[in-house]
């Protein structure tokens, strides 16, 4: 329970991109809350449920179709249930008997029904009746998006996957759809066009043997609300585009914060960063980030911390307590 709660908090942080100090504050809140919860298990349960309830009461929404059936519309959702699984059932019921306000339309076709659902470790699987496959592709996509976005609002649900008559849902080319989150879908493609910036940057990735750094130049676009440091580190985590270059840090690494002050760039990464990268020298992992940021931002040094801590040894070898300066000797030419 404690773990779940903490992860939830981390997710919030990632979403909100708090600054380093704010994050540390969050960390302490996390710890304080945790100790409190450990002290009283009963209180914890009540607290958790209460939180879920207030979340649902405050601005939870359920999706329906607009009058043309071409996009999703929100309608307020109020839940009476207190536990996640009952809330899920309540939502699925609501979908099947939905009566949206005029001129909106019901999201699911009348014939479609839910056969079963199961929740395991915050991963929700829903099994639909055969009629699911009879929907047109546009309708199917909207239905999928509407259901997923409604359900992931619940605290206890992180991802949702769809099954039809027991079989995993596939696309037209028989590829599995798999688990979906709210981020799986984009709604306003291109509408934020003026809120992006672009930059041509150099990125350093691992060489094949994992002992050297290889330079890769790329034109990137990033939302202007996102710090440039964040955008750069994100590109390192997402891996190279050029053949012959190899990822230098784990692909699931989370960025908690990224900021620059007085010539030092502060990067706070999630605990996933600390996990071993097979075949990659830890120095290469560290310096792929350090060299990239120093070259692209023009800062003097880079301070890396893991989950807010910098009093640690990275992979048991490299201390993170000092800011790093660039080491171009690692770069292949």
């Amino acid at each position, binding site marked *: 329970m404690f773990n779940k709660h903490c992860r939830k908090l981390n997710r919030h942080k990632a979403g909100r991109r708090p600054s380093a100090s704010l994050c540390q504050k969050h960390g302490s809140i996390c710890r304080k809350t945790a100790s409190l919860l450990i002290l009283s298990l009963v209180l914890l349960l009540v607290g958790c449920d209460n939180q879920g309830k207030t979340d649902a009461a405050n601005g939870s929404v359920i999706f329906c179709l*607009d009058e*043309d059936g*071409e*996009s*999703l519309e929100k309608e307020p959702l109020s839940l009476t249930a207190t536990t996640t699984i009952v809330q899920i059932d309540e939502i699925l019921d609501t979908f099947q008997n939905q009566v949206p306000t005029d001129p909106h339309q019901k999201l699911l076709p009348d014939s479609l029904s839910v056969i079963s659902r199961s929740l395991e470790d915050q991963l929700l699987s829903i099994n639909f009746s055969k009629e699911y496959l009879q929907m*047109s*592709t*546009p309708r199917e*996509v*909207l239905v*999928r*998006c509407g259901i997923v976005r409604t359900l992931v609002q619940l605290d206890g649900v992180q991802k949702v996957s769809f099954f039809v008559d027991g079989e995993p849902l596939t*696309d*037209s*080319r028989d590829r599995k759809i798999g688990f979906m989150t709210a*981020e*799986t*879908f*984009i*709604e*306003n*493609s*291109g*509408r934020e*066009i*003026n809120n*992006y910036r672009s930059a041509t940057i150099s990125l350093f990735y691992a060489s094949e043997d994992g002992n050297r750094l290889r330079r890769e130049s790329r*034109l*990137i*676009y*990033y*939302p202007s609300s996102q710090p440039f440091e964040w955008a750069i580190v994100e590109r390192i985590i997402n891996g190279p585009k050029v053949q012959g270059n190899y990822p230098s840090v784990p692909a699931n690494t989370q960025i908690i914060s990224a900021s620059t002050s007085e010539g030092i760039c502060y990067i706070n990464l999630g605990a996933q960063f600390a996990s071993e990268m097979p075949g990659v020298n830890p120095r290469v992992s560290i310096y792929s980030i350090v060299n990239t940021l120093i070259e692209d931002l023009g800062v003097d040094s880079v301070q890396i911390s893991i989950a807010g801590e910098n009093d640690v040894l990275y992979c048991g070898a490299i201390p993170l307590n000092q800011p790093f300066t660039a080491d171009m000797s690692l770069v292949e030419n």
Partner: protein
Amino acid sequence: MRSLWFRILIILVIIGAVPAYLATAVLVRSYRDRAVSVREMSVKNQCVMLCDLLSSERYLEKIDSVAVNSQLALLSKIYNGRIFIVDSDFRVIKDTYDLDTGKTSVSKDVVNCFTTGKGSSTYDGRNAYIILTFPIEDSETREVTGVMLAAVSTNEVEQNAQLLETRGRIVIILVTVLVVVLGFLLSRFLVRPFHRVTKAIEDVTDGYEDEAVSVPDYIETVQITTAFNQMLTRVRSVDNSRQDFVSNVSHELKTPLTSMKVLADSINAMEDVPVELYREFMQDITHEIDRENRIIADLTSMVHLDRKAAKLDIERTEIGGLLEVIIKRLRPIAQKRDIQLILDNPEEVYAEVDGGKLSLAFSNLIENAVKYNVDHGWVRTALTADTKFFYVTVTDCGLGIPLDQQEHIFERFYRGDKSHSTTIEGTGLGLAIARSAISLHRGAIRVASKENEGTTFQVRIPLTVEV
């Protein structure tokens, strides 16, 4: 605020500044529309070509076509836009910003393009972008296998439009300032002749200037000054006639007094005057007093008639009866000289008139006809009427009026030939009074006469007087 120059200024400012403002607004607007549509068209052309390339390269099946990717990158760069390619599963297989690749698009534009099979374009001016969608059709089956969505920023257009707007605003301000300054000077200049008119009239009023006013700058000022000069002439002639009148009146009033004084003095100068002589002299003095009285009575009635706002006591009157009363009153005087008075009224004529004033006029005419007649003569008074007017004609067989006197006889105090004026008494007010009374009724009087043969006065008066 009601001044002419101020109004001219306002009008100049309005016709100067308002068109400038409108022109700027229209210009900026049409620039914006035009620039957006040009951009839209060129992106559209490029995208349509690219869509064809996409389907011929079968890009939706494997996205590693170098030709397409480089075209996409180029297009994205040139138009500062972002291009998404969405496959039939609504999955974004290509995003030139590389941020949303692999996600599922539920954008309304994409859904609409898939369901209708037609492209669309949406321009959002406030957020400065155009969204264009294009169906990617299979080159053989013509089925929609994907959608290309291009988002193009129109920030540049917006910035240019704002620049134009700012410049336009500066131009408007300059034009306004210029128009205000020029308008001020011009309007001052334009109304200057009117000030000159005022000045000239004031000079005349103050008595510095006796000449006629002349400001020949505009037709309007010429009209004003001409009208003013006419009025001036009129006022002056009125003034002159008033002076004449006063001197005439005093002279006329003095004459009987002088006679009385002579009579009284001469009787005083004599000694032992017999009673008979006293009586005779006293009779002469009484006669002079009567004359004085008559003159004063005439003057009073004339002043009454002359007043501009003389009130008419309108009443329905039978004109024949009215004439009969006058003739009856004059008959004793006529009989003394054996003059025959004839009234010729075949029918009754009713009219809405002021009977008192009209009988004054008619009795003066008939009285004259008797007075300036020969012994044993006659006077004929005739009354006729039509639908609108009635006519009274007074004809005599008397002395007549010489042609050169005819135009003067209606003037006050004018008396005909000196020879009669000594023998026939009168003050010369009778016809003036008659004419005043008649013109108050909107009527007319005419005279026709031949010396030593006779005279005819014809009077025409409307049956109803419109006030």
